[in-house]
């Protein structure tokens, strides 16, 4: 009896050691394998619930890449996931747990819409004004998101407040206050749903390639641009080295001259700036106005799974986002075109998220808890 816990611990140690030592290729393999396995389990659940699993599988494919419409929808979600995933990855990489991307994107989104609506009367109509307002909106979102994330950063760095708790709380605060504003002072009299004024004509990202009004290749380009900037920043600049080193081993970073407090605040601010951009892209590219924040998809939370799947590597966020974008897209398709209930679809997406993110989460936990044996 008494050696049972030992066996469990031993087995856990071996699994953890294996995961800790996994090479990049093995980790890609683990990600692909766990995705496949999760989908397989999802199909079993669908079959057990009395639906045709093959039909369901087909709907998943059709719903994500089966038509131009489905494909652009996938790309639309992918764009949002990339930005949100990078926001999370920046923080996680530096060892700061920003769970508040959702709140930051809401604050960024509303800041974007408000700045555009306020400035609109003062700029000329037409293309030039539209482009100008769009840029202002993006900038406002970046600033607002950054500030909203800097707050928990300061609280953590200088007052020792746990950033996981403060960022979660700030999510609720953002949802509550913005929700009230959008339903109250910001809601036009003639609006039948909870929303702000429409953004003026000319504000938006032109579709260019696809004709989907809710997706622009420029938005995707912007997201990929952010990925590039963050990836280069992390690997090729002094500041990036400071940040990533703080994430790996804070004591060594401090000894090398890194100011830990300032690094925490800077990391959170950067993370929030990118999160704010998610809100702006959502408002400008997808909606054209701002809505009740509790009705916005949980991009900020799903982004945690995206980032974990990508091992918190900004470049890895791109394929991870593609997977999540496809799932989200096919989910909305299946919901309309099959009789599989919505809850079941969410559950299956949940299984995928769990399976896909769990190995990386386990890796991070193992690193933190010393499971899998000490190195060296």
């Amino acid at each position, binding site marked *: 009896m008494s050696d049972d*816990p*030992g066996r469990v611990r*031993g087995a856990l140690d071996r699994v953890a050691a294996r995961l800790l030592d996994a090479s990049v290729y093995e980790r890609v393999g683990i990600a692909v394998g766990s995705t496949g396995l999760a989908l397989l389990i999802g199909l079993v659940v669908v079959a057990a619930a009395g639906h045709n699993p093959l039909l369901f599988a087909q709907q998943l494919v059709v719903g994500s890449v089966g038509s131009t419409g489905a494909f652009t929808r996938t790309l639309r979600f992918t764009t949002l996931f990339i930005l949100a995933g990078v926001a999370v990855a920046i923080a996680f990489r530096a060892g700061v747990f920003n769970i508040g991307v959702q709140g930051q994107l809401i604050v960024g989104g509303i800041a974007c819409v408000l700045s555009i609506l306020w400035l609109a009367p003062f700029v000329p109509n037409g293309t030039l004004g539209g482009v100008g307002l769009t840029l202002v909106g993006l900038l406002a979102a970046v600033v607002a998101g950054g500030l909203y994330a800097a707050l928990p950063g300061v609280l953590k760095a200088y007052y020792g407040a746990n950033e996981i708790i403060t960022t979660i709380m700030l999510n609720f605060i953002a949802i509550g206050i913005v929700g009230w504003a959008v339903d109250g002072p910001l809601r036009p009299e003639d609006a039948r749903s909870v929303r702000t004024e429409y953004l003026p004509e000319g504000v938006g990202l032109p579709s260019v390639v696809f004709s989907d009004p809710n997706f622009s290749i420029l938005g995707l380009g912007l997201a990929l641009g952010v990925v590039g900037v963050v990836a280069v920043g992390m690997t090729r*600049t002094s500041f990036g080295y400071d940040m990533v080193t703080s994430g790996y*081993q804070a*004591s*060594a970073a401090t000894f*090398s001259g890194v100011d830990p407090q300032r690094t925490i605040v800077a990391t959170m601010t950067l993370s929030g700036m990118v999160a704010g951009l998610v809100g702006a892209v959502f408002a400008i590219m997808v909606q054209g106005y701002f809505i009740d924040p509790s009705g916005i998809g949980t991009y900020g939370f799903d982004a945690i799974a995206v980032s974990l799947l990508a091992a918190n590597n900004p470049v890895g966020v791109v394929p991870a986002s593609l997977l999540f974008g496809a799932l989200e897209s096919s989910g909305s398709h299946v919901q309309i075109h099959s009789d599989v209930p919505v809850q079941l679809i969410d559950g299956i997406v949940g299984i995928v998220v769990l399976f896909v993110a769990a190995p990386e989460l386990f890796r991070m936990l193992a690193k933190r808890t010393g499971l899998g044996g000490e190195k*060296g």
Partner: protein
Amino acid sequence: MTADAPPAVRLEGITKTFGDVVANDGVDFRLERESIHALLGENGSGKTTLMNVLYGLYDQDAGTIRVDGEPRSFDSPQDAMAAGIGMIHQHFQLVEPMTVLQNVVLGHEPVDGGLVDEDAAREEIEALCDRYGFDVDDHLETPVEELDLGTRQRVEIVKSLYRGADTLILDEPTAVLTPQEVDGLLDLLEELRASGRSLIFISHKLEEVLAAADRITVLRDGRAVDTVAAADTSRQELARMMVGREVSFDRPAREAIPGEPVLEAEELSVAGDRGLERVSEIDLTVREHEILGIAGVQGNGQTELIEALTGHRVPDAGRVRLRGDDVTDVGRRRRLEAGIAAIPEDRNAEGLVQEYDLVKNALLGNQTVPPYANDGWLDWSAVEAHAEEIIEEFDVHPPDPSATAGSLSGGNQQKFVVGREIGHDPDALIAAHPTRGVDVGSLEFIHDRLLELREEGLAIVLISSKLDELRALADRIVVMYEGTFIDEVDPTGTSDAELGLLMAGQRLDEGAERETNGRSNLEGTQSESDAEATVDRRTGGDGER
């Protein structure tokens, strides 16, 4: 016990490798019943690895383990415990907020009707303590975090005994104890042996091993060099076996070169983490071509002094000057750029990022220093060249820049850190325990380099707990006691016993007291090659921080 009873533990041909590093290479070891067996060797010689294999923490690659003559294979410490083997780790495995009683019974709670039967546990522990004269039962309801380290260690021992251990492994048990506590521990080991337990005592300190053990097995580079009876050997012989050759620790000839003051502190007062003053109005000057040695029992403010000099800690009062410029309010990064290099006290936590390769580690501390960084942009090819330079010049093994820091042995890690810190031509170097946990070959190498740097004009502050190191390197030695420099002495004209007295807080002019108090461990360390000046008085596994 009959003469032909099987030994308590017998290890045959134990081999254990970590990647390319062979930690144990065909080690044979035999622990007789009712004996104290010391496992002696330098840090990194494989002592702890061998015991971790026995304790089920590691799987050996080859070799067999026999306990009481039976071949055994342990998958986990729980298996080893079930076979009567207990291990007291260097870093205690106690849950600090929980009481002593809870810690002792943890995982083996006596149960009465589904609830922990604390009364039964208390009775049993008290009986154990009575038997061995432990004082642990005085503290049964006290949270472990309120106990001093010596008592915590006894709690660990009681915990193992409570679980029925017949064979106890103690990993560097004296490292955290005060001299008085060391004496108490050695008595306790005798006591345990007399009651029929078999003990393995891991150490790298010759005096303790000779005083406590019946037999001594010396490990070097993962191999068992020899096993000798403590009565038939000497410190000289043990040192030679540990190191593999005669090692000279004579003070190298040098001439004093007067130079300009480089690093100065004036009436410096520094508070520790808990807000208490740890450094009190210290004045200090280090000149070009000079090594200033700071001796002292650990925990007398050295850490805080170092941090105030390097820029990691803001002093409460006083000034720090570098070549006449006031740098008191300048943070670590700018002091580093200004030319104050530092070898950290704890290379594992502070000196190296374990998961980074050597290239990335070569950038640590240099991330804002040209040519490795220009206007915030990193030049990795320059960093890589730098890493290769360090590896070449400091003879780091393996000579592979893509090896992770964590995969290197302690000595090679330290050589890399030293090489990196002096790489960008600093004006001053704060070297904290530059040879701690380093094998003798690397130690001599680092010493030689420090002396060369002194020749070249570097001003060096050397903080060490090894008196022979201070004696070999320093031009002047100041002794730190309770936050002040109690005295400054000439390294060649002062005996270890005198230094020891100063470190214990007694001024040398208090001559009368010297006779009566000069006893104990301090004399024993004289002229011994690896002698630690006194036992580190650490309050925690990582020192004071």
